[in-house]
């Protein structure tokens, strides 16, 4: 057993490609997603609807365009032009001032600035609105209203009002990577032994199927766990994504998910006879559904009903709920024991199935 695990580690450490997938990819993915999503926006083109310009609206406009975030400042003829300009795609946000702005302000009537953003790029829209709101709040303070806002910024997201899925990149990446590393790498490594013929020798030896499986998965449990931890560390230190709930609970749930992914990987390898098939199966049977149907990128409630049903079968879907609850909401076990139970049941099924399907002979 010990020899088996050592051998497996040697395979991993000696293969540059495996090492890259194991350790290079998490790093690249976290950085890529992290920077792509949190990257500051500079010089976004913004237009203005200011039907009756006055001192206050000019002041706010100046502050907005001096901030460095926004450029342009083109004045549109009226609300009716907004849609047209968004469609042309050259502006990202429109700032709409109420008429009689300064007068209302003076009378203490809280005039409204509408921030209309093109949320077909939800991430950028969100940022722009946040920046603009911040600047308007600063203006509030500067004219002495302090806690009670004088000007009310009223953001409206067009095209994608809920803006879901944007903050989920860390939970999502952890899920994808654990799935990929655990399932794909084990299925490939077992398929490789079939391809090179070494599986024949293993089968002819007194090793039991259980030992072969255990020897195969142990290294990947360890490495996947290290991976999960390093993603968490990286997202905390590089992007400041906190873990609000119990870290211990998070790690325990991760191990459960790793085991599930590994048993899936072994299950795949009982079907695939060469590395290429194992790779394709993991890609299409695991990776794409994980990305598309788990709610990582596309919100499940927006999917057609059929896909919603299918997504119930996706292990990552449940894990994402759990990990999100712990990391972002700080929720405790009571909130996701059902999801945990589902994962446990799935793991059981796959382990049983793969031990049963793992052949003691060739066919």
């Amino acid at each position, binding site marked *: 057993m010990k020899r088996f695990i050592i051998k497996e580690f040697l395979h991993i450490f000696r293969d540059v490609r495996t090492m890259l997938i194991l350790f290079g990819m998490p790093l690249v993915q976290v950085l890529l997603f992290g920077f792509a999503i949190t990257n500051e926006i500079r010089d976004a083109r913004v237009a203005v609807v200011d039907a009756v310009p006055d001192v206050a609206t000019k002041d706010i406009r100046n502050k907005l365009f001096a901030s460095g975030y926004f450029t342009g400042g083109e004045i549109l003829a009226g609300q009716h032009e907004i849609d047209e300009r968004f469609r042309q795609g050259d502006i990202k946000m429109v700032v709409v001032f109420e008429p009689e702005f300064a007068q209302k302000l003076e009378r203490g009537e809280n005039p409204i600035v509408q921030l209309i953003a093109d949320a077909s790029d939800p991430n950028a829209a969100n940022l722009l609105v946040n920046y603009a709101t911040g600047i308007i709040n600063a203006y509030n303070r500067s004219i002495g209203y302090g806690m009670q806002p004088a000007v009310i910024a009223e953001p409206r997201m067009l095209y994608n009002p809920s803006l879901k899925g944007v903050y989920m990149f860390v939970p999502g990446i952890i899920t994808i990577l654990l799935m990929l590393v655990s399932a794909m790498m084990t299925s490939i490594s077992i398929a490789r032994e079939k391809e090179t013929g070494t599986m024949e020798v293993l089968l002819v*030896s007194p090793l039991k199927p259980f030992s072969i499986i255990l020897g195969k998965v142990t290294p990947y449990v360890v490495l996947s766990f290290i991976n999960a931890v390093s993603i968490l560390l990286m997202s905390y230190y590089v992007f400041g994504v906190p873990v609000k709930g119990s870290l211990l609970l998070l790690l325990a749930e991760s191990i459960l998910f790793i085991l599930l992914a590994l048993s899936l990987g072994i299950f795949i390898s009982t079907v695939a006879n060469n590395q290429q098939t194992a790779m394709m199966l993991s890609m299409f049977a695991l990776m794409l559904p994980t990305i598309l149907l788990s709610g990582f990128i596309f919100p499940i409630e927006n999917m057609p009903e059929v896909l919603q049903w299918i997504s119930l079968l996706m292990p990552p879907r449940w894990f994402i709920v759990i990990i999100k609850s712990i990391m972002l909401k700080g929720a405790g076990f009571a909130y996701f024991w059902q999801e945990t139970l589902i994962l446990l049941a799935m793991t059981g099924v796959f382990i049983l199935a793969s031990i049963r399907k793992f052949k003691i*002979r060739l066919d």
Partner: protein
Amino acid sequence: MPDVSITGEGVGKSYGTTTALKGLDFSVNKGEIFGFIGPDGAGKTTLFRILTTLLLPGSGKVSVEGYDVVKDYRILRRILGYMPGKFSLYHDLSVEENLRFFAGIFGVDVHENYHLVKDIYSQIEPFAKRRAGKLSGGMKQKLALSCALIHKPVVLVLDEPTTGVDAVSRREFWEMLLRLKSGGITIVVSTPYMDEAMRCDRVALMQQGSIMTTGTPQEIIAAFPRKIYRIKGSGILDILRLTRNMKYIRSAELFGDAVHISTENTDQAPTAGEISQYLSAQGLSGHTIKEVVAGIEDCFIDRMKQQPDKHE
């Protein structure tokens, strides 16, 4: 009666509609080198996988050292040494890591059992740190053999151990097998090379899933029922064409740059002189003809042509 190590009775195996093995009967004695000789597709690998408990026979019974390959596979997997066709080594592990690993999965210690493989392993020991993937064919073969021997198997099963290995290594390999045999181990080996048959104690000639004949190589050659003439000369294609048209000629086949002719077993069959005269009469002069003793390859071809469902 010598002690029997392996027996097969009516061993058959089909994959879908293709029949890989058509009911083989054979027995291998303890301590002998038994060769299954035949081309690719004869069914050697399928048979060996059944012997090593990797495949279930479709029909018939096989027992190894008294154990049934289906029921007693757990016991057999302890006492068999198996070297599959492709030298199943881990190419990314070093020579010594491979040996240690294979010892490990049989639960034996390399140091305790070192004496079993010393003869062979010492030849590759200078490269102990080298990755198995970087070894030459001959060295891979020695390493694979060491790995198959490290747990002191009672029966050693070698599937085409000399394929893809150069002539020098092939020769050395057979010398190693002879030494192993003197240690009492039973060796079953397969090969597509007819010349290697002569190295075995007994052989079975295989073709398309059947055994055509079994015996010592000497017996098989002695049983060859016909005369063989070897003709050399220029215009080899013409010699082939002309002799094939002659009466009572059973076959005319290329053997290197010569032609081997076997005649029918009758008094009317042409003699060497008559064949030579005939060729000269057809304008082919300057050839030499002499009677030769049949080789295993002649026997194989002859048996193949007797088969009712012969190739193509």
